């Protein structure tokens, strides 16, 4: 009985997720509503079947996510029946921090990184699952599956625990935690094929449809609600687009596409010449910016 590649990746991820449930007092799964999160949630359901997923899901809501994402999140929580924690940084909200006035770096720090730390501290979680993959970005390639964070949620890339065989060391002291990446060894293409093979539901924004967009500095931004700030001369136009990655709509670029089904997306992927994170505005500030953010506690 030959195990194919997706089966092998699934088996490894399920093993990792179960290890966390067995080793930690209070784990939580970061749920970003994206395709990787959807796969991770599906793997968690497989890991504990026929039991329920034994930990809550946490969504850090910046209030600037695509509205379709929020609707999808709430519907999934009801249909699948997982415990959902939604957290928004109250200080950032009160200060009116937004991606238009405060720049992507500052906004991301306040509404994502700081918000995440608040939520993890409030829940006293000792393990947090993230859907990051090592193939996404160069600094991720060196991340462990069980990645140690100190009491301030900081990552020290020079002082990581060696990770051997499948014997994961999840021991932490008071206040310390582990970020766990069960999809470490998956590629973007693996994720798409797995979604197809397992009929995993994803936010429709991943599939092409006519949507109102403006083109700004070569990036296609979707006008998702009335808060969108147009620059001089900009007007929304309807184009057939889809998203390779989902986040805050003012910071997430769309690609022009007519791929309206999963099969078409995968076919388009197969001819792709650009990596998926390219659509994210925050990664382009400077080379190595992801590593800087991760040291500060970003996922």
């Amino acid at each position, binding site marked *: 009985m030959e195990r194919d590649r997706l089966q092998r990746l699934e088996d490894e991820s399920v093993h990792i997720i179960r290890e966390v449930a067995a080793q930690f007092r209070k784990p939580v799964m970061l749920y970003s509503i994206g395709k990787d999160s959807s796969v991770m949630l599906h793997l968690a359901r497989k890991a504990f079947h026929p039991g329920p997923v034994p930990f809550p899901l946490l969504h850090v809501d910046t209030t600037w996510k695509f509205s379709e994402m929020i609707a999808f999140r709430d519907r999934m929580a009801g249909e699948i029946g997982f415990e959902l924690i939604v957290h928004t940084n109250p200080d950032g909200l009160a200060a009116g921090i937004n991606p238009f006035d405060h720049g992507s770096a500052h906004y991301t720090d306040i509404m994502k990184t700081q918000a995440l730390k608040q939520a993890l501290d409030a829940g006293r979680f000792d393990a947090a699952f993230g859907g990051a993959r090592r193939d996404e970005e160069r600094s991720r390639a060196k991340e462990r599956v069980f990645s140690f964070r100190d009491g301030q949620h900081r990552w020290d890339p020079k002082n990581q625990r060696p990770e051997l065989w499948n014997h994961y060391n999840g021991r932490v002291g008071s206040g310390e935690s582990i970020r766990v990446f069960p999809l470490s060894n998956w590629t973007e293409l693996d994720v798409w094929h797995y979604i197809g093979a397992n009929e995993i539901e994803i936010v429709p924004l991943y599939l092409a449809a006519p949507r109102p967009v403006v083109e700004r500095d070569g990036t296609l931004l979707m006008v998702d609600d009335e808060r969108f700030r147009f620059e001089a001369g900009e007007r929304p136009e309807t184009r057939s687009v889809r998203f390779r990655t989902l986040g805050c709509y003012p910071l997430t670029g769309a690609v022009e596409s007519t791929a309206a089904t999963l099969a078409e997306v995968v076919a388009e992927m197969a001819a792709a010449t*650009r990596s998926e994170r390219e659509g994210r505005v925050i990664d382009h500030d400077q080379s190595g910016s992801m590593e800087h953010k991760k040291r500060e506690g970003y996922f």
Partner: protein
Amino acid sequence: MGGEPVAPRPSADLLRVLTCGSVDDGKSTLIGRLLHDSDLLYEDHLAAVRKDSATTGHAGGQVDLALLADGLVAEREQGITIDVAHLYFSTPRRSFIIADTPGHEQYTRNMVTGASTSELAVILVDAARGITTQTRRHSLIVNLLGISSVVVAVNKMDLVDYREDRFESIASAVRELASALGLPDPVCIPVSALHGDGVVEPGANMGWYDGPCLMEHLEQVDAAVHAAGASGIVGGRLRLPVQLVIRPDHRFRGFAGTVCEGTLRAGDRVRVEPSGRTTAIARIVTFDGDLEEAPTGRSVVITTSDEIDIGRGDVIVDPAHPPQRARRVTATIVWMAEADLVVGREYLLAQGGQTMSCRVSEVMGRLDVDALESVPAAAVRLNDIATVTVRTDAELIFDPYTQNRTTGSFILIERSSNATVAAGMIEAAAPAAAWEAVPGATLERQRSSISGAERAERLGQRPATVLLTGLTGAGKSTIASALERELFERGRTTVRLDGENMRLGVSRDLGFSSRDRSENVRRTAELARLVNDQGLIAIAALVAPSAAVRERARELIGADRFVEVFLDPPLEVCRARDRAGLYEAADRGEIRQFPGVSAPYDKPANADLVLDTSRLDVDACVRAITAWLEAGQFIGAVETPEP
């Protein structure tokens, strides 16, 4: 670079590859070349590398392909790779996960880490420099970690004018090294990562070479992990370590885990270790429906036909081929922490769900990578590979590492920092120390007709054992003699058991390894128990450096009649008193494993008496001990115990 980049459908086949080479062998460049020439790079990744090449690259104006593999900012600045990086790519034939591990000597731990999950290793050799210490070290580790499929890429062929004789002489040295290590013959491939020859395309410079290019070989090689199912049993022996119990309600009770050897089949009889209970697999439950069978590597939930107690750390196995169980194993460890291994200190041992306290009780030797042989080791330091005996608090269920990579390996965790400090590969169960030896079942204790009360009345004392422990020069023998004299003057009856005297007779077969020291303490403790049983007071003078061993002596003799006296002068005083020159000999390395110099002395944390013999004279020490014995009514106004 020609044609459009192709991102094929992931092929069914996945190979995990370890790449190792020394700092200047051009390993990162080779990986970059593999990706570049296979048209597997995204345009924006390549653009970022082009941009970085201009500012920090070391390829002299060309696109520095090494930057693709070297991810972190700090590493790019230093121009060397320092950690394990994982890279992913697929060709129409195969998908690959590359663990790129550093070549610099001080980072052995990273290479071991990468090797632990790899199925094939690519070792780089610089054609101009030939085989180096690094090549030996890498071959040794690859072999140690059980990777039998090895490719030696002889790189920088451009620097030796693509000469066949140069390649052949290196290939022959490689085969010699492999044979010395007991490795199967590795495949040698000549390449130039910088110019691309022999990596993905043959190139025009090595017409004399008719073997496969590196990529062609990686796509075609059959690199089954020999360590999974290397037991020689056809199909492997079932091993399912239990991760956790799935019990959503009272109707369902399943056991989750990953099959790490053999095939699990519904209906098969299985045995549960360590309880030894047997049952049958009732169902193999998955989210996608029940399975009839699950092969090695599959993560499953099973239910059993009988309600038996199974929990995390248990292993479900083939009843015809059960794993071994022991509290003492010999293993090869790779030390991964800045702080040295402390023999006798408590560490945590973890293997999947099995987590237990353990101590390294003995270091047999350290592997010398140049000589490829074991040498004596005074200490086990960062990046050392050592053979040791590990004693665990609970029974460890295991297979030898050469038979199973999962049930044959473990990690050691330092208790205060929770850091992973060592990787271990189990060789075999170690013979139990005499402490654990079980006397023959037919033996029976022959009782005396004289009661304890009668003896106490006759001798005017109750039996006790005074253990005088401390470093060489602490005053143990001196105080033992003085105490013996004082008790003799008072009309008490004693037996003095001096460690040195023990070694002149009862223990003349023992040396000074931690194992032999432990055995000397055991023999002394057994004698003390015998004389205590006859109503006498035993005075034992022993270094007894291990707290765990002293604790065992206390248990053996009986805590209610055991007095631990710690003689604790400063180390300088001990050294000054040492007329025999033992400390100096230990400093010179002539005496090995000498407590206080090259071996630890665990200071007693809960001694009954602590006496600083640099401040108290002999009489004061004796008075303190006799006062303690009087307070405990061992001597003085002895109350006769009830018969």
